[in-house]
């Protein structure tokens, strides 16, 4: 495993899930990797000139175009005859990927570029100060979906990003969580072993925006998975290859650690709606661990 490709000294907040996740990703990808980053927290906290955390070639262009820039880099590497030796990693946050960058991402996937795209999902525009995105969950209190007399926060559930991506018929599409570092690295390596477009939807808690204790990042990340709210699934060529089985915990256990959901903790109707979302995932992906499988956890 290559160490020191993404080094310490950056300016991310304490407990930042994305900074930890990006180090895990890059270690797994190795030094023969070119990173293309959308605008967002990661680019901001890791490249403040004249310093940089990146021990690999790194390029940031704009908010929405990492997938298109990566397409150009991959094409240039093909032209130079170097593509088989070099990984191209495109990265963005949830807003840069699922909202403003979705068109460029779709184009990159559809054209079949040999690029791994990683969406670091912290469920809102955190870099600009916690505004809701298409990947913000139901009932989340953000600065642009605030709670009030007539509002319980974000009125809609998360956009089904993995399904949208998977519908392109790509080589590999999976979800992962920074709460499971080895799983993250296994999936990055798996993805990079395949030719063509690959996608990893990586769930990364944001203590600032989710308003949980910075020391609880891993705990919160795991609870998102263990409640069924963020299922860990893996597709190859559109076929579901595996899921992380869970012993489902009630969604309150996840929600109560985060002040962004505090306003619904005493609202049974809302808790029921969110639980229904988790139950839907559990049923759909058959996430529930059977008694006989118990020891695999």
């Amino acid at each position, binding site marked *: 495993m290559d160490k020191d490709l993404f080094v310490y000294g950056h300016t991310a907040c304490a407990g930042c899930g994305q900074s930890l996740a990006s180090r895990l990703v890059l270690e797994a990808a190795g030094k023969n990797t070119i990173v293309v980053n959308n605008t967002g927290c990661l680019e901001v906290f890791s490249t403040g000139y004249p310093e940089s955390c990146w021990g690999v070639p790194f390029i940031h262009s704009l908010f929405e175009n990492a997938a298109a820039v990566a*397409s150009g880099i991959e094409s240039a590497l093909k032209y130079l005859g170097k593509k088989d030796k070099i990984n191209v990693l495109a990265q963005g946050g949830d807003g840069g990927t699922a909202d403003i960058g979705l068109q*460029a991402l779709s184009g990159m996937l559809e054209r079949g570029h040999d690029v791994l795209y990683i969406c670091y999902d912290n469920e809102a525009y955190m870099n600009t100060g916690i505004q809701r995105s298409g990947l913000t969950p139901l009932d989340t209190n953000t600065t642009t979906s605030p709670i009030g007399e007539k509002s319980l926060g974000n009125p809609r559930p998360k956009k089904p990003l993995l399904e949208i991506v998977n519908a392109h018929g790509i080589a590999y599409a999976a979800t992962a969580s920074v709460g499971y570092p080895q799983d993250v690295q296994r999936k990055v390596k798996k993805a990079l072993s395949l030719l063509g477009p690959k996608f990893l939807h990586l769930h990364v808690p944001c203590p600032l925006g989710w308003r949980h204790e910075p020391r609880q990042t891993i705990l919160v990340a795991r609870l998102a998975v263990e409640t069924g709210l963020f299922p860990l699934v893996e597709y190859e060529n559109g076929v579901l290859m595996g899921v992380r089985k869970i012993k489902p915990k009630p969604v309150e256990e996840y929600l109560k650690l985060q002040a962004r959901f505090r306003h619904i903790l005493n609202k049974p109707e809302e808790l029921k709606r969110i639980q229904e979302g988790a139950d839907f995932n559990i049923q759909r992906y058959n996430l529930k661990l059977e008694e006989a499988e118990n020891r695999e956890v």
Partner: protein
Amino acid sequence: MKKFLEGSRAVAEAIRLCKPGVISAYPITPQTHIVEELAQMVANGELKAEFVNVESEHSAASCVLGASATGVRSYTASSSQGILLMGEVLFNIAGMRLPVILTCANRAVSAPINIWNDQQDSVSMRDTGWIQLYVENNQEAVDFHFIAYRLAEDKSILLPVMVCMDGFILTHGIESVDIPEGEKVDKFLPAYQLPYKLDVENPLTLGPLVGPDYYMETRYAIQQTMKDALGVLPKLAKEFKEIFGRDYQDLLVEEYQVKGAKKVIVAMGSVCGTIKEVVDQMRAKGKKIGLLKIMCFRPFPYERVYQALKDVPKVAVLDKALSLGAQAPLAEEIKVACWGKKKAPKIISSFVAGLGGRDITAESIKEIYRRLNQKEVSLDFIDLKPELLKEKYG
């Protein structure tokens, strides 16, 4: 070799000779023929390049940004709305000092939607940090692409260059053009070498976050380089003439019967051909008139323009674009070039013509010369139809 070609085909032939490794574009009229030709050349194996069919002009510009940063010569083309959609990326390419080349097949912008020619698209991008060259005819369209790559990739420049050619008038016009031998182009245009690039052996961080302590110097540097480009272009013109035999004066402006002229029109693009025709006709009748053709609009050659115009009593500037609510863009530059000088034209009148593809005829040009007999015009439209302006809402 002389060939009878559509302008778009001629440009595609020129690009083929420049050997870009990555081409990316999105369809838009009237640019599309250029990239269709290039796609066919790639499909036929006549051009070894990756042709990337992107899903928008924003991605086309982003794609060539990435390819250029990886150390591969890149090319894109667009028009009108496509140029506007690229706008964000155009600033970015220039700020990252990437020598990308773009052909702008000039077209009006919406609304109302209009596919015909004027120069509002590229003129609106004049502050992006791209060098902008405007061509009069298809031979210039061919030659200026060789010059564009050479200038962009010059170690002292490293800025993108936009070659602007009037949509339909040139892109779809068929003319006899000389397509030079590849060896000549190779001699003029060395292989692409970028001093900074994405290289796993020498990892660099490109496009970092730059705060108040450093940002202004990056902009200052581009401003200085733009001035430097004014010095490089005349040298390239000389070298170009030696290799290809065609004389583009200093590649900044072309003086056509300006010496001793009493009235001069300043213009850029294909309309200069029409103006030359009128100049020839009227010179034959003893009228002392001329044309100052602007070839390089960014950087703007203020001093060179002043030197050309300082002895001309009456100047008319013809714009095919507007800066709505302000002076016309080219006229503004000409006025600035002559501003505060003791010796300067007595009249600098500004005219806008040809918007949205309205023909600029020889009669339109004669009208502009005639208007120079009157007092200075701050900005007026030529060939406007007053009868269409009568309708009013409630």
